[in-house]
């Protein structure tokens, strides 16, 4: 690609970024608005955040969402990493086509279909719906995202370290745990965080698989939003955005540190 951006390039990137960030910025700013109306600016205030602290329904929903997200992200990371290792390292095995089909399909499957089918599964086997069914549904939804992230890391890495360990008599499991796992750790961490935020975010699948007493934050927000804009919801959203932004910065620092370390190692190997 020839370097040197033309004016048209700069303008299109600027407009694109403005389009992406303007609505979110407006939402954040108006969560600090003292006035209840969107068009009236009543000065800066923390009223809606104070009101949020007294809204037990929202706080409870947030707590359930966080627990579901932590649990399902962990399960999805384990399953997704195994699937990625299988796809990259096992070459062709029987049923590979079906396996990779099942792994990639949830990426583009419309959520209403996944949600409906999981619900009907739980009904068919008489499973009580609630916290656990949402966690299972989210694990199924998010593991494919982990697989894709870990897979791309596994493809772009040097196998000679692994081969050296195996040649020196290190058993496969130990090689995986001591050599492979630390090398793909940044991708696994990124996968976990993506799974966590996707679970925290999901409305459709959670609505299908939820049961009494398991109202997640998006379900709660959705039922409030349908009745119109509420400043408290602006405040909840701002808090979620802040958490996600902080998480993303930390994640990028981790991967950057990992990249720098790898680069140093590669240089060391050359010398």
């Amino acid at each position, binding site marked *: *690609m020839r370097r040197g951006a033309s004016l048209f390039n700069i303008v299109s990137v600027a407009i694109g970024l403005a389009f992406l960030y303007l609505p979110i910025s407006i939402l954040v700013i108006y969560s600090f608005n003292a006035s209840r109306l969107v068009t009236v600016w009543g000065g800066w205030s923390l009223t809606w955040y104070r009101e949020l602290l007294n809204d037990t329904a929202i706080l409870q929903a947030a707590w359930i969402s966080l627990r579901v997200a932590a649990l399902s992200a962990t399960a999805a990371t384990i399953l997704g990493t195994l699937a990625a290792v299988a796809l990259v390292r096992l070459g062709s095995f029987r049923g590979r086509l079906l396996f990779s089909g099942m792994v990639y399909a949830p990426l583009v499957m419309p*959520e209403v279909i996944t949600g409906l089918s999981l619900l*009907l*599964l739980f009904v*068919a086997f008489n499973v009580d719906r609630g916290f656990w069914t949402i966690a299972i549904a989210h694990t*199924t939804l998010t593991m494919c995202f982990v697989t894709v992230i870990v897979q791309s890391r596994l493809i772009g890495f040097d196998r000679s370290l692994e081969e050296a360990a195996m040649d020196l008599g290190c058993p*496969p499991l130990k090689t995986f745990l001591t050599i492979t796992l630390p090398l793909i750790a940044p991708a696994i961490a990124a996968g976990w965080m993506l799974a966590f935020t996707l679970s925290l975010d999901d409305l459709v699948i959670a609505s299908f698989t939820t049961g009494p007493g398991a109202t997640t934050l998006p379900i709660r927000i959705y039922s409030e939003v349908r009745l119109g804009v509420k400043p408290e919801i602006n405040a909840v959203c701002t808090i979620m955005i802040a958490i996600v932004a902080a998480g993303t910065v930390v994640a990028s620092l981790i991967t950057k540190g990992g990249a720098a370390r790898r680069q140093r190692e590669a240089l060391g190997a050359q010398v």
Partner: protein
Amino acid sequence: MRGEPQGRKWSGRAVVLLPCVWLVVFFLTPFVIVLKISLSQTALAQPPYSPVFDLSAGWAGFLDFARQLSLESFRLLFTDLIYLLSYLKSLQVAAISTLILVLVGYPFAYGIARAPRGWQPLLVMALVLPFWTSFLIRVYAWINILQRDGLLNDVLMRLHIVDVPLIWLSSDTAIYIGIVYSYLPFMVLPLYAALEKMDESLLEAAADLGCPRWKTFWLVVVPLSLPGAAAGALLCFIPIVGEFVIPDLLGGSETLMIGQTLWTEFFANRDWPVASAIAVTLLALLLVPMLFYERLQQRSLEGGR
């Protein structure tokens, strides 16, 4: 597997087994059940459909069960205009928004790909960051802007472009805005990945041979970025067809998209067989683009070895 030791083979099997069992139980089996219920009929019972498959009745029970299956729900889908219109509306919205996404996303991705090397990771991160914030929040943010006494009307009236507030929310325009906004990163990222890989010398060669810039763009850049554009278009088109949240929060109530119709059949009408039949037909409709997407995904992840 070139001459791997036996132990490696066994650990390999263990690695596949766990995710495979999970996916068979929680991804494949549910579809079989959906298919089965789409062939059932509504009943005033719990669960609200019949026949209910009973393993204890044995082979005779299975035959009895098979006799009771019917295509009633599918017949309804193809005869009642509501469902047909819903499918058409979904396809129309998905096609038009994918087109808008390509038109909006291309200059954006091209701009990022032509930015100085050092800037590119930062720009990509700026592009991805909103995608990490909640989908629901991003759609909700537009309600603040588009509602009748919202910011867009406020700005337009202050600038004296319009005198009375326009209706933005509950319209197709709002659906398109919401979809383009939410799916933009999915379109720009694959496009950028394709554009960024492009060999610089091709453009230099074209310039050296006296090809004008716009012609180089059209004859060299665009064809080379087609795989990226195809991946982005599929990554957007497929989920948009089944989209629920955006049309539900931003759209009107005249013609529902198929995701909303499924939702209403299931939650409001409690007609599980029809909801399942909608899901089955939707899946059949999306199967070809989904297989295309899987091919692209496999090629990009596994072809580069």
